[in-house]
């Protein structure tokens, strides 16, 4: 991402050659992960995720809209990511950058492919469905926005409440307060992101590592299958490397799913 000074690069490179990392982790370790749900009670669902010093907030809003033409019996999902300029010296205000759009789209694909939301339960009547908006707010950048964002989005959806609708003639009124059920979810998706720098592959690259990263790959999965993948940046992975990373991602996803179920209070 951002080319930092060479001193830091040399430092990280030397450590990696000895199989070490700046914060004491092994190559396939995560930083500590914390999730808090319902931190923004005005939103139907919300979750704050801290992975090391990376802090991400996901907010879920549910409203009424019209279905997509190709899926008239399903609700809509809209995922956006904001790399807030307060999150890093290198982020600037303005329309979403390609980086922000990539983060949002990869997270969106995982949620969609894994059927995290029961989309058919969002049907209201012909030409009227519920729309689910997931906004990923990056509050402090220190690497690995993909995994932090996926965790935050999934935890926010799992803990979201479901508004009710009342119809009087042609008028729809959305009720967002009082006794409400939960948004119907069917699955949990998590992702594991690996970075390749100085020839080594590491899990959960932090901000310093990302600034020297040549290649990145995100593998999103549920309990059984891979649900979304994205390889990024100009470098490459060998098929053998990817082979190993697939296994690591499945192994790691078990504890990530537990973190989500615990946070969502299930």
């Amino acid at each position: 991402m951002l080319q930092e000074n060479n001193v830091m690069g040399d430092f990280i490179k030397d450590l990696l050659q000895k199989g070490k990392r700046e914060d004491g982790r092994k190559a396939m370790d995560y930083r500590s992960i914390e999730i808090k749900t319902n931190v923004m009670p005005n939103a139907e669902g919300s979750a704050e995720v801290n992975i090391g010093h990376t802090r991400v907030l996901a907010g879920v809003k549910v409203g009424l809209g019209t279905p997509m033409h190709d899926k008239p019996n399903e609700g809509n999902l809209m995922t956006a990511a904001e790399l807030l300029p307060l999150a890093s010296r290198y982020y600037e205000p303005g329309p979403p950058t390609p980086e922000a759009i990539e983060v949002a789209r990869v997270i969106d694909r995982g949620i969609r492919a894994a059927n995290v939301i029961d989309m058919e339960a969002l049907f209201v009547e012909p030409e009227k469905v519920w729309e689910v908006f997931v906004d990923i707010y990056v509050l402090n950048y220190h690497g690995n926005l993909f995994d932090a964002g996926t965790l935050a989005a999934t935890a926010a959806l799992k803990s979201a409440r479901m508004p009710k609708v009342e119809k009087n003639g042609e008028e729809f009124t959305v009720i967002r307060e009082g006794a409400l059920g939960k948004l119907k979810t069917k699955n949990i998706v998590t992702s594991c992101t690996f970075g390749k720098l100085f020839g080594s592959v590491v899990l959960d690259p932090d901000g310093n590592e990302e600034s020297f990263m040549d290649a990145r790959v995100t593998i999103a999965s549920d309990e059984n299958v891979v649900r979304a993948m994205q390889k990024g940046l100009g470098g490459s992975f060998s098929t053998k490397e990817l082979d190993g990373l697939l296994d690591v991602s499945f192994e790691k996803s078990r504890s990530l799913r537990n973190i989500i179920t615990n946070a969502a209070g299930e």
Partner: protein
Amino acid sequence: MAGGEKPVLIKDGKRLDGRGAEDLREIKIIPDYIKNADGSAYIEWGNNKIIAAVYGPQEALPKHVQDPQRAIIKCRYQMAPFSSLEEHGRTGPNRRAIEISKVTKEVFENAVLIDYFPGSEIDLYVEVLQGDGGTRAAGITVASVAMALSGIPMRDLPYSVSVGKVGESLILDLNKIEDNYSDADMPIAISPKSNDILLLQMDGNLTRDEVRQGIKMAQRAGEKIARMQREALKAPYERIAERYKK
């Protein structure tokens, strides 16, 4: 002012949330909330949840915006699309947010010693994660703390609060529903050392006398707000002092 049926905002001298006319909502300020920023703080002011962060001073870019006499302040106030209990909002600053950004910036053009940093810019970001009325006032109050924590020299630590009117009575610190249905809303920012007014906006109807009383009401509340700002500024240092006492 919103349409629809107007709720009873004051009953037996109590407001909807149980406060008296001159009571502030509960305020909590957490310093150093954003690790990457040069200065930052988070505020919970009633149900408002707002982050302010400061980056700078740094070279002002693009070059043509540079002022050879002083630093420029760039401020962006924005509400998250999930910040309200109603519909999903639109992302990005709207006309309201741009105006609030401007008046907020102007508060800090006064409070910050900008002539110490010619050619530079100071970036101030105010992100409203959850809004419940009075977000510009809470935003300015927390931005003061963030600015001071960044180490940028300031002549004073401004605070802000709004005053409004319901029927015949003036009330302090309007929440969202009061803001929507009140007869007047007047946000004020004040520099506490001089008691000078750095921000003043108003809409609705107030007599001249009510304006004068309203400002006094804001200044009385300001003593409490200013104390909380100072406590938040001291907190990180007190923690360090505590550690070295042992």
